[in-house]
């Protein structure tokens, strides 16, 4: 309609925040709490939502998605928990080693790609490791609504059981923790059997665990629509490659330690994005032509689309070959 055209900028709305607390939770995980610079309340959100944290790492802009783990009804603060990834590209290390109380940072508005099915008669949660974080806000939301939930949480050891003790203390009847180092594992087959009609299952954790829950639920006759998962993929380093951009009429180079999306942004190309983890679909880009192999790492395109070589998700996927031409 072009009534009052306004340029749409990429990504969600942003909020300036001050780091109000940095709390080590265990050897790998640290919690970061934020307050708003402008003193306004934070937007309330729905359990399972994430925020994209924008980091200024010595002039290099890093943007990583983290689940919001605070109570959605508490508009005075947002909190995230970050697991240190020593082999990653540096976002989590930056958070762990550089971010101090009082620092000013930028967060995106909440975005939810892992929301509760509010029709569910019962919510069955499966968490692995740092995958516990979205469930913390879901549990807070369900507790306010008198929701029916149960958590099965797999951790490496008691020392690395992020929030496991807190949860067991607070909700002794709902929370079940399984310790790898004691050879305990989630009795998935039994749990999927005999749940009341209208139960929804949710899983967040390592890739293998997500696949295990989906496959087991399918085997047990669960409808796909009642099994929900969220997995953010961190962009992986890879061989540098060149990309020709039709619309922008330029050729850019993607470095070893940056994603295609980051290279686009570095060159001032306005590319859409939201989650930056291969889950939301917002950055989907059409491939005009290519001579080489794609390294698809997203969860958005299906297998046929991956095989067709006509689409790429620049936030996590890469390319190896002689030439790549994108409609961007």
């Amino acid at each position, binding site marked *: 309609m*072009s009534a*009052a055209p306004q340029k749409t900028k990429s990504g969600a*709305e942003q909020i300036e925040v001050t780091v109000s607390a940095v709390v080590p939770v265990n050897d790998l995980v640290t919690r970061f709490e934020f307050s708003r610079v402008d003193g306004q309340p934070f937007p309330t*959100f729905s359990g399972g939502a994430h925020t994209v944290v924008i980091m200024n790492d010595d002039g290099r802009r890093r943007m990583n998605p983290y689940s919001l783990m605070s109570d959605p009804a508490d508009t005075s603060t947002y909190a995230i928990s970050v697991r240190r990834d020593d082999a990653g590209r540096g976002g989590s290390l930056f958070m762990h080693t550089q971010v101090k109380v009082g620092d000013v940072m930028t967060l995106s*508005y909440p975005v939810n790609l892992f929301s509760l*099915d509010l029709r569910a008669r019962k919510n069955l949660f499966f968490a692995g490791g740092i995958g516990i974080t979205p469930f913390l806000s879901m549990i807070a939301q369900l507790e306010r609504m008198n929701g029916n939930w149960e958590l099965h949480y797999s951790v490496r050891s008691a020392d690395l059981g992020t929030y496991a003790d807190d949860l067991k203390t607070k909700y002794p009847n709902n929370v079940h923790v399984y310790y790898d180092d004691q050879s305990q594992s989630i009795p998935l087959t039994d749990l999927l059997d005999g749940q009341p009609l209208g139960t929804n299952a949710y899983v967040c954790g390592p890739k293998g665990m997500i696949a295990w829950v989906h496959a087991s639920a399918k085997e047990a006759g669960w409808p796909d629509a009642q099994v929900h998962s969220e997995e953010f993929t961190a962009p992986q380093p890879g061989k540098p490659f060149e990309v020709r951009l039709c619309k922008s009429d330029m050729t850019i180079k993607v470095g070893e330690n940056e994603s295609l999306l980051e290279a686009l942004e570095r060159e001032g190309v306005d590319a859409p994005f939201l989650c930056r983890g291969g889950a939301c679909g917002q950055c989907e880009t059409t491939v005009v032509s290519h001579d080489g192999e794609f390294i698809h790492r997203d969860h958005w395109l299906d297998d046929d689309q991956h095989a067709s070589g006509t689409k790429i998700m620049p936030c996590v996927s890469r390319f190896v070959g002689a030439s790549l031409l994108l409609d961007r």
Partner: protein
Amino acid sequence: MTIQFNNETFRDDYSFSNSDWAIKRFPFPFHEDSYMYSVNMEQHRGGPAGSVYEKRFDVDEHYVAEMRDRALVLADDPLRCQSLPHMTLAGWDLLELIMVSKSEDYPDLFELHRDGNRWRWVNKPMGIDDTFTFLDETTLPYGPMEYITRQAQGDFCVLDQRDDMLWMDAGMVTTQADWSLDFDIGMNFFEWHAPVPLAHEMGIFQRALKFLLNIQQGSPARRLNWTMTVNPLLDTSPENYHKWGIQKTSLTPENLGAKQHLRVELQTFFRLPRSNALVFPIRCYLCSFQDLMTMPKWGRRLHRVVRDLPEELATYKGFIDNRPMMLDYLSQYDDGLSTSRGIWPDLETEPPLQR
């Protein structure tokens, strides 16, 4: 400005009328001399002062009369307002969105006082002053969605989002262009759009759904849609087709300018925070052809759009039988001059009718 609310009706004697102010700010939907479907979305972040795009929820001179008409429709047919059990939280989200927006955008008309979950809501035009507990349905006379949409112009569809799909799981629908909430309740996005011609083949709905699923908190969007209505009727529902459908045969060359109305929907889309649902307000604006013709640009353009509209669309929008008579009327206001781009009337720069 303080709005003078009209004492008018949208039924029986049809005393509805637009003031000069309302005509000037009418959301004329055609930005060029022809029309075809498009996913014509843009951000809903205000607009020119005084325009219908300026506020999150536009309030105009028809507010009080429209709310009176809604109450009459609901008294006859309570199923115009429905909310499936899992949508109550989305209803509270919507109540908060409307109360916060209206009290901030129209502080002289609406007040919201919040003390924790103890809220006091003052709606001066409707003489309402209620205190209630947020998220406690027992403290309101209706469910939260019904309560607030009895006080807000336009229809409201509250869409649940699951499995990368939108579901029509709640709504308040009394000013609709011939569709039924009672029929569509529980349907998904493709199901409730099934009757629309051409757009499916064009891939419009796939693109629109993808856009809507990605609307985020804090980033509302909007678009316009339109149709034609004989007499200023808000409730053109399938349930009441036997009452209003027949009125389409009452047009004559003499009464057409006054009776034939262009009906424009300002559709907006907001992500709701607690429920992650999407609310889709559909605000209806009516303007008679004779009032539209006071803007020379709109006269020229409306003639060309109606003349060149594909037959399927004229049929779907319900005016194929009256199109020849409408064209006879509209052609008097088309002198063949070119028109400026965009939807605005450009009264100062567009030449008067040259005949």
